[in-house]
């Protein structure tokens, strides 16, 4: 099977729960090497790179999982986490001692990211005290703040109400417009139809069909896809 994403493109991976969407995202995020096949970045096999080079690749990606998994700290500290780990240890130790919040450029990115999800007013609040929707948006802002080349989102709106979902989908579109390649794993066909440039259907452990949303949802090439999108195929 094969799945690719280009800059400024939103690819959704659809499929029933438990089909392996999360596993696929974790492979793309280089959490662990694939049992077979390759994960390529700009044509290079990521697992053939040195640890250092692979870290550099990983740092062009930001991943948001289904659970917000925020740290027990302020919203702002959460949002700047990705930026913090990219700074040299000497700076981080100095910041930790002086209590400083990083460089001004980082602060700007953090502010922008929080603004994008509409939460800049909550930045001093502890992240664990947020509602589910707010938390998910902070998790998203945390990924946006590092200004990644590729954004991997696993069921980003599974815990969200329609209003929060709309905010999130706008933010995804916003990122795409800025040239970010976005991969979204979702079981929500309507969402896939709304936000995708391309849709990949993951069924029976492999991607059986890839194409623009109109094509996949209106006239699927594979019969299993048709049965899945019409709800006939129940898993």
């Amino acid at each position: 099977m094969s799945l690719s994403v280009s800059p400024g493109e939103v690819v959704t991976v659809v499929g029933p729960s438990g089909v392996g969407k999360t596993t696929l995202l974790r492979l793309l995020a280089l959490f662990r090497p694939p049992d077979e096949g390759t994960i390529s970045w700009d044509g290079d096999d990521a697992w053939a790179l040195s640890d250092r080079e692979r870290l550099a690749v990983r740092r062009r990606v930001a991943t948001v999982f289904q659970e917000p998994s925020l740290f027990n700290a302020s919203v702002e500290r959460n949002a700047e986490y990705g930026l913090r780990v990219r700074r040299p240890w000497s700076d981080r130790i100095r910041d930790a001692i002086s209590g400083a919040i990083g460089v001004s450029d980082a602060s700007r990115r953090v502010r922008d990211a929080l603004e994008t999800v509409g939460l800049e007013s909550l930045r001093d609040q502890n992240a664990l005290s947020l509602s589910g929707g707010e938390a998910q948006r902070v998790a998203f802002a945390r990924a946006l703040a590092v200004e990644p080349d590729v954004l991997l989102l696993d069921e980003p709106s599974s815990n969200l109400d329609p209003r929060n979902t709309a905010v999130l989908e706008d933010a995804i579109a916003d990122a795409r417009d800025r040239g970010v390649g976005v991969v979204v794993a979702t079981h929500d066909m309507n969402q896939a139809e709304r936000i995708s440039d391309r849709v990949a259907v993951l069924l029976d452990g492999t991607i059986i069909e890839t194409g623009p949303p109109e094509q996949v949802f209106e006239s699927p090439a594979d019969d299993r896809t048709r049965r899945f999108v019409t709800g006939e195929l129940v898993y």
Partner: protein
Amino acid sequence: MFPLTATLPDASWTYFFSIVAVSLYVSGLAVAVSTLVSLPVALGIGFSEFPGKRAVTAVINTGMGFPSVVVGLLVLLVVSNQGPLGDLDLAFTPEAMVLSQFVLATPVITSITLSAVEGVGDDVRDAAFGLGGTDADVALVVIKEARYGIVTAVLAGFGRAISEVGSILIVGGNIVYSDGTSYTRTLTTAITVEARQGRYEAGLVLGAVLLVLVLGVNWLGSWIRSRGRGRASGGGRRSP
């Protein structure tokens, strides 16, 4: 402090403060070293999956209940002039007491830290990794997320050390210089001296001081924890 002057037969303030100082020095240093050892061990065990993990965890948990007099005897055999560390002349020194309390406190701190570390969900580690964190960053996140559990672990270790008497009596020898300053006598071993001589009141006064110390340290711990929680709800800049 009033009844102390009245009932402590050995009371000179020098005597009293020096045994408190020895108690704090020995237990404090032992717990500090234990923590430095326990943290990486707990993180290592908590993060990894290996065949003997359950057995290792069971051994550590058993170590929490290891009888202190047995530890004292073993440490004495090790540091005694005839033992493997005999050349270091550690028998009946505060350093030998630090060693035995280190042995006693480490399983306690490791075990509680381990459960705190394991209480930090995989998802939080994944989030840190997925945002570009290295293994070291992920470990740091886990430590920070588990910080209140780790504080509890350190306090529990300190509580075990400061109130322990069996091992330090054996390896320290309960020595007081003839000018009345303690060399290896702690609050607990001083209590045994008072009890041995039937001066229960003086022993109780020392026991009360010990209790106040332990309570104070625990109060400090719960203050740190509540301060953390206060910040958790009230905001403020606390690093993850």
